[in-house]
C-alpha cells in the first residue's frame, strides 16, 4: 500500500459527531477561484428545489444513485427547511454505502479466486457507488497489475546473499537486495523484520516456497500477474497462412494477419514484410490493369528497404506525364474555343496526373479569373 500512496489523492472522509448523531461528510477545500463580489440587484430571483428533485428521481430510477444523490443534495441546499428531502439524502447515502460494500466484497472474492476481470468489474461498480473508495482504487490500479513483486520481511540474522539465494536462487544477485531494500548503510546482515518489495525476474525462475512460506501474514503478495486469455500465438504459422492468402490475392486477409502480428510485436519485421508485399503485389495488379494513378499510390507506400520500386515508379511517372501532356493540350483546345469550364476540368486532370505541372496551374488560375469577369459582365 505504501508503494501506491503517490498515485492517488484520496479525500479523507472524516467522521463528524454532532449532538450524538454521527454522519460522514466529504471535506475538501474549494480549489477554484472565488467569484466576483456580488452587486446589489433587485432582479435577484431565488431558484426552487423542484427541478433538482425531478432530476434526482430520474437518475434514481435509472439506477445512477450517485448522481441522484448529487441532485438531492442540491435540492437540500436550495430548500434546507424541507426535512423530507434531507431524509431522502440520508436514506440514499446509506443505500449507496451498502451497495459499495457489497460490490467491494465481491471484488475481493473474485480477486482471491484469481478471476481478475470479474474482480475489476466489481471494483469499478464499487467506485460507481463510492468514487472515493480507497481500497477499490488500490485493487484496480495496482493489485491487478502486469507487474509481479514479492513482499518479503528479513528474518533474524539473514544476510542479503541469503535472501538473494532464497528469492532468485542466486546469491550473486545480493546487489538487487541492496538496491531495493532502501536501508541506510551497507550492512550485510539486515535488520530483522525489515520489509522489501522485490521484483520478480521474468526470465529467472522463482522458488515457489519463497513466495509463500517466508511471508508474514500481513504482507501477502500484493501483485498478481493477470492471466492471459489469448491462446498461444505462433508467428510462423500466421506467416504461412498469409503467404497462402498472398498467392490467392486475398490482400485484406494478409493485412489482417499483419495487424495481428503487430499486436504481439509492434516492431515485427515479418509484419512489415507482409505489408510491403501486399502493396507491391497490389501495385503490380493495378499497373497491369493500366490504373497507373492508383498503382503509383500503392508503390509510394512501399518501404524501399524492403522492395526497391524506383524503376517501376519512374515508368509510371513517364506514362502519367505523357497522359498529363495530352490532357493539357486538350485543355488548350477548349480554351481556344472559349469553353473555359471544360478547359479547367482538363487542366485539373493534368494536375491529378502530374501535380508539378506549372503551366496547368497558371492556366487554371487565368481561366477562373476570366470566367469570373465574364459572369460579372452577364
Amino acid at each position, binding site marked *: 500500500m505504501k508503494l501506491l500512496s503517490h498515485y492517488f489523492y484520496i479525500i479523507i472522509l472524516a467522521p463528524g459527531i454532532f449532538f450524538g448523531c454521527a454522519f460522514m461528510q466529504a471535506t475538501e477545500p474549494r480549489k477554484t477561484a472565488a467569484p466576483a463580489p*456580488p452587486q446589489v440587484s433587485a432582479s435577484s430571483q431565488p431558484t426552487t428545489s423542484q427541478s433538482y428533485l425531478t432530476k434526482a428521481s430520474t437518475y434514481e430510477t435509472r439506477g445512477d444513485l450517485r448522481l441522484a444523490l448529487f441532485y438531492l443534495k442540491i435540492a437540500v441546499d436550495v430548500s434546507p427547511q424541507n426535512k423530507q428531502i434531507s431524509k431522502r439524502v440520508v436514506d440514499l447515502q446509506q443505500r449507496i454505502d451498502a451497495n459499495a460494500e457489497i460490490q467491494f466484497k465481491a471484488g475481493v472474492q473474485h480477486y482471491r479466486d484469481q478471476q481478475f476481470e470479474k474482480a475489476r468489474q466489481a471494483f469499478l461498480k464499487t*467506485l460507481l457507488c463510492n468514487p472515493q473508495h480507497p481500497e477499490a482504487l488500490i485493487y484496480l*490500479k495496482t493489485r491487478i497489475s502486469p507487474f*509481479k*513483486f514479492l513482499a518479503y520481511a528479513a528474518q533474524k540474522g539473514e544476510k542479503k546473499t541469503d535472501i538473494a539465494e532464497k528469492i532468485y536462487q542466486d546469491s550473486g544477485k545480493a546487489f*538487487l537486495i541492496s538496491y531495493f531494500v532502501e536501508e541506510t548503510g551497507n550492512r550485510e546482515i539486515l535488520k530483522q523484520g525489515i520489509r522489501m518489495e522485490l521484483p520478480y525476474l521474468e526470465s529467472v525462475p522463482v522458488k515457489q516456497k519463497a513466495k509463500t512460506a517466508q511471508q508474514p501474514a500481513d504482507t501477502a503478495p500484493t501483485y498478481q500477474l493477470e492471466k492471459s486469455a489469448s491462446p498461444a500465438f505462433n508467428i510462423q504459422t500466421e506467416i504461412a497462412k498469409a503467404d497462402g492468402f498472398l498467392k490467392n490475392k486475398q490482400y485484406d486477409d494478409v493485412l489482417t494477419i499483419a495487424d495481428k502480428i503487430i499486436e504481439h510485436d*509492434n516492431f515485427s519485421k515479418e509484419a512489415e514484410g507482409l505489408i510491403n508485399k501486399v502493396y507491391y503485389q497490389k501495385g503490380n495488379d493495378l499497373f497491369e490493369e493500366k490504373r497507373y494513378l492508383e498503382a503509383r499510390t500503392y508503390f*509510394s507506400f512501399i518501404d524501399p528497404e524492403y522492395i526497391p520500386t524506383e524503376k517501376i515508379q519512374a515508368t509510371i511517372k513517364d506514362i502519367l506525364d505523357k497522359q498529363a501532356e495530352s490532357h493539357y493540350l486538350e485543355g488548350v483546345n477548349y480554351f481556344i474555343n472559349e469553353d473555359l469550364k471544360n478547359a479547367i476540368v482538363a487542366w485539373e486532370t493534368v494536375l491529378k496526373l502530374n501535380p508539378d505541372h506549372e503551366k496547368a496551374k497558371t492556366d487554371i488560375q487565368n481561366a477562373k479569373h476570366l470566367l469570373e469577369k465574364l459572369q460579372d459582365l452577364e
Partner: protein
Amino acid sequence: MRLRTKTIPLSRALILMSSILLVACASSSVIPPAAIKSDAQSGFIHEYEDFVIVKTIQGDSLGELAARYLGDPSKAWLIAAFNDIDTLLPGQEIVIPLKPVQLGGLNMDGFQKVPILLYHDFSKTRSSKMKVLESSFEAQMRFLKENDYHVITLDQFLNFMEYKEQIPEKSVVITIDDGWKSLYTIAYPILKKYNYPATLFVYTDFIGGNKALTWNQIRELAEYGFDIQCHTKTHRYLTKIKEGETFKQFFESVEKELTYPKKLLKKKIDRDCNCLAYPYGKTSSLVAAMLKKYGYRAAFTVTRGGNPFYLHNYNINRSAIYGQYDLEKFKKNLDVFQPITAE
C-alpha cells in the same frame, strides 16, 4: 456540501444554529441554506462548497463561467457536459460542479478510455511504416478537430489516470518518439496550426545526429509548450540481456538508461523528466521497480488501445500510427469508451 462560512453573516448563522439545534438528531444531514447572492453580471448565483447555481443573462458564455468559477476558461466543456448543453441562453439555470463528479470518466454505462497516438518520423514525399506523410498527418489532425476530439496534455492525461481530474469525453494524447528532425520541419507547424499539445520522447544519444533534432530545436519546442520526456539513452531493449553481458552489467546498463536522460534533459533544457517511453514498448517487473525508485510518474508501452484510468501507470498503452494508414485505419485507434459488462 456545506455553505462557505465566509458568506454567512453572524446574525444569520445564529438563527441557523438554533434551527439546527432543534432538529439535531432527527436530521443530521441538514445543511445550512446558501446566501442568495445576486450578480449584476450574471443574474443570480447560489454558491455552495461543491457547486454553484447560476441563472445566466445575455452575453454569458460557458468560457466566462468556467473562468469565473473553475478558474480556467478551457473547462467550459465541463459545464456544458454536466448540464448537457452546447451553448448558453439567457435565463438558463445551470449547475457548475466545483469538484469532479465523474472521476475516471466512470458512469453507469461504462468508462472513458484515452487513446494515445504514437508517431515517429515524417516525410513530405514518401511514407514507410515509421514515416508518416505530411499530408496524412495534416488529414489526421484535421479529422480530430472536425470530429470534436480534445487533444490534451500529458499532465492532464496523468491526472485523469491518477483519478484526480476529469477530462473531456473525447480526449486524445499525441506523442512522438525518438527525436527525428522531421518533427520540427513537418509535424510542428501542423500541430501549431491546430494548437495541439504534444509530448516528445527522446533518446538522448540520437539528439544532434544527422537526421535528428538539435538541442536548440528541442529547447524551442519545449518553450512553445511541447512536453519533453525520456526514451532512454541509447534505445536499447530494457528486457533483453545482450550476448556476453552478465546480469549485473545488464542491470547497470538499464540503470544508466533510466537515469542519464533525466540528468541530461535537466542540464540541456532545464526540464524535469518523469515519464518514460520504453524502447520497443517492452518492460518487465524489474524495470517497473527501478522506475519507481527513480521517481518516474508513468511509463508507456506500444500496446494498442485506449487507456482506462485503472491501468497501472507503468503500463500505459499507445497506438502507433504507421505511414500506410488511411483515415479509416487511423479512426480505429480512437476508441474512447468501454461499456461495463453486465452480469
